[in-house]
């Protein structure tokens, strides 16, 4: 993992003091709310429906146990005992006081964390693959590139007042677990003739005008990365629309001038920018790379590690998975559903689902956060990840330890065996918390998860990514759902549109609206209806998405609207 040196620490500490001064000036009336708003937003502080909301950055979704525990501490000390993990791999607190915000940032700074650029019209927190450094299908660890970009984008003097927000994702595998092409810039690491480089996609996004990013450059080496991205941003800052907030994202610029013209301008700017010496030397890349070196994995036959905490105690077993344990159906179901292949033999990647039936997707209590930190420390080389699907990952768990991990999770209500199933729902906070929302998202997620609570039924439906947004801004990624739901305001009441056929994976596609919307109970029925169409029409081995792509919208429409 990346560790701050004195320079990183000084910068984050200075930020705390800067914000403390800005808050003081605001509370003293020296600056207006209009002037203060961009300053607080660039520190992740929103004024939401009920209170201030603080969004804390989790760079590329990576945390250690000390940082995770600090997130629990903040939930207890300054909020109401819980936090909400978001689709951008961050965490949000819903009940923050402005007067506490500087102290919260100071506490975060003690564990190398901050809320820098988690909002505002600037380059946001860099997101990445939650399996980075562990995935069996990885070309290289994308977090090294993401960290280079994090530093470059932090307080970027030229790009802090862009036309609109700007989101960058980096992945290092063929499988896309980060919705890379639905970002303003998506970077996929690839090898060409043994040399590592990035394929650059620009102009993707969701929101009211969803677009899949076109490829702008097939290969950029790490030596040129920052100059190239600088050129991408400069062209955007110059020409991105500022007359209409809804047309200000880079996707609209590229759509209007075309990918070829944009590429030409970027290349011209890059030729100039590259001469300025903006790229750090190889030694910096190597310094960061060394910090992401693989942990000291142990041989596969090493005995399991017992887990002891105040709440749970599990016995050690010689092999980790004894005959008695194999008989535990719940464990086996969880293991089959929530673990993924690790590049190191004897290890697995564990996803902790924050989607219990009837729960609030992405929410975790301070106690649960602490427990996940404990498990990471003991079983996962002190590492955790946040996923864009609002779950938590323990990236490096020995297979021999899986049972102990599961037991501890199960005791804390953290072992739903539903990764990528219909109840593993992405949902934005919606109208229960968000001042932009038109409809509530969470109650719909709860009702759908409850309707499909039967585990066998969920498993029979197979991979089915259901994503709910409470407004057109699409924080709940409804455009990328195999089934998407968009909440709208219909003459003062909540109404829900149904979308089908989206994907945020490597087969990126945008979902299409089925037709007229439904009320809250109607949308739950509608979801059940389309799953029934799938069950009736599916061919061997087809996921819901595959069947939809093969048979098209008509059979679903027919079933929904007759």
């Amino acid at each position: 993992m990346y560790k701050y040196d004195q320079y990183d620490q000084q910068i984050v500490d200075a930020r705390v003091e800067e914000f403390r001064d800005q808050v003081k000036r605001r509370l003293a009336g020296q600056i207006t709310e209009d002037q203060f708003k961009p300053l607080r937003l660039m520190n992740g502080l929103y004024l939401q429906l009920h209170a201030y909301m603080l969004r804390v950055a989790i760079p590329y979704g990576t945390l250690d146990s000390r940082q995770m525990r600090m997130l629990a501490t903040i939930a207890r000390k300054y909020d109401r005992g819980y936090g909400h993990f978001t689709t951008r791999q961050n965490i949000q607190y819903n009940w923050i006081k402005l007067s506490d915000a500087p102290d919260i940032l100071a506490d975060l700074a003690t564990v190398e964390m901050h809320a820098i650029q988690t909002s505002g019209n600037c380059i946001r927190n860099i997101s990445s693959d939650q399996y980075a450094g562990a995935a069996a299908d990885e070309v290289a660890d994308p977090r090294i590139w993401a960290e280079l970009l994090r530093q470059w984008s932090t307080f970027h003097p030229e790009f802090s007042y862009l036309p609109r927000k700007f989101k960058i994702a980096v992945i290092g595998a063929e499988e896309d677990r980060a919705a890379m092409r639905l970002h303003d810039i998506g970077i996929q690491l690839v090898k060409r003739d043994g040399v590592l480089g990035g394929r650059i996609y620009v102009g993707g996004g969701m929101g009211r005008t969803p677009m899949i990013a076109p490829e702008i450059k097939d290969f950029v080496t790490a030596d040129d990365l920052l100059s190239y991205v600088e050129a991408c941003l400069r062209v955007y800052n110059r020409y991105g629309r500022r007359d209409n907030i809804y047309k200000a994202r880079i996707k609209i610029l590229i759509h209007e001038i075309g990918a070829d013209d944009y590429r030409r301008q970027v290349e011209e700017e890059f030729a100039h920018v590259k001469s300025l010496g903006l790229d750090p030397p190889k030694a910096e890349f190597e310094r960061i790379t060394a910090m992401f070196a693989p942990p000291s994995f142990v041989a596969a036959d090493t005995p399991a590690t017992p887990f002891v905490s105040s709440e749970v105690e599990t016995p050690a077993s010689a092999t980790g998975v004894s005959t008695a344990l194999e008989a535990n159906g719940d464990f086996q179901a969880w293991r089959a559903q929530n673990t993924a292949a690790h590049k190191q033999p004897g290890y697995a990647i564990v996803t902790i689902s924050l989607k219990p039936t009837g729960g609030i997707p992405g929410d975790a209590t301070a106690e649960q956060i602490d427990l996940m930190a404990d498990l990471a420390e003991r079983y996962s080389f002190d590492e955790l990840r946040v996923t864009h699907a609002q779950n938590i990952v323990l990236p490096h768990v020995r297979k021999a330890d899986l049972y102990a991990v599961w037991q501890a999770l199960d005791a804390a209500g953290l072992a739903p065996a539903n990764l990528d199933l219909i109840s593993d729902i992405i949902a934005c906070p919606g109208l229960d918390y968000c001042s932009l929302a038109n409809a509530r998202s969470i109650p719909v997620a709860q009702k759908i998860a409850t309707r499909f609570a039967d585990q066998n039924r969920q498993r029979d439906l197979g991979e089915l990514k259901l994503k709910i947004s409470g407004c057109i801004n699409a924080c709940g990624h409804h455009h990328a759902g195999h089934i998407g739901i968009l909440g709208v305001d219909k003459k003062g009441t909540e109404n829900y549109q149904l979308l089908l056929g989206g994907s945020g994976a490597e087969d990126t596609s945008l979902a299409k609206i089925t037709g007229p919307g439904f009320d809250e109970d109607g949308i739950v029925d509608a979801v059940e209806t389309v799953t029934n169409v799938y069950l009736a029409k599916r061919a061997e081995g087809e996921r819901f998405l595959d069947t939809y792509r093969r048979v098209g919208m008509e059979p679903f429409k027919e079933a929904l609207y007759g």
Partner: protein
Amino acid sequence: MDKCNTPLPLAGGAGGGPVADAPANPADSPSPNPSRKREGDRTEGDEPAVTLDAFLDSQTNATAVRLEAGDDARALLPYLDRIALVEVSFPTFRDGRGYSAARVLREAGYTGELRAQGDVLVDQMPLMKRCGFDSFAPQAEIDPATLEAALTRYENVYQKAADGRVPVWALRHG
């Protein structure tokens, strides 16, 4: 000092930051006119800045040019050696095009005065300075102590920009 025709020179009135007021030029693009020296207190005696269109159309003997937010600073690059002042307009503090305009001019070797005028907030001035601005004509009054604190707050920066500051990656690796 309250109105836009009273620019605030960076190194003078504000007590000065930790960094020299003259912008550093990229090593490979030397100033076309390195001998001309800028006055820190050049203010109300300035000739009025002409618009970019006027400058390009007929007034190429003017030495002060005003860039509106949407103007392309690259149009000035052939004439940098005869310009003493470029005033960049910020119609609202949210409009960040002027930051790129400043970088473009400094990267091309412009050494004259570069003034940020308009809805320019104190918390933006450190970033503007990094982009190469060396004087400010904010619409609203700026508290000098707040400005000085803002300009001296960050001992380190992550990027190489137009102000000659050494980024941390260079400090890390000598």
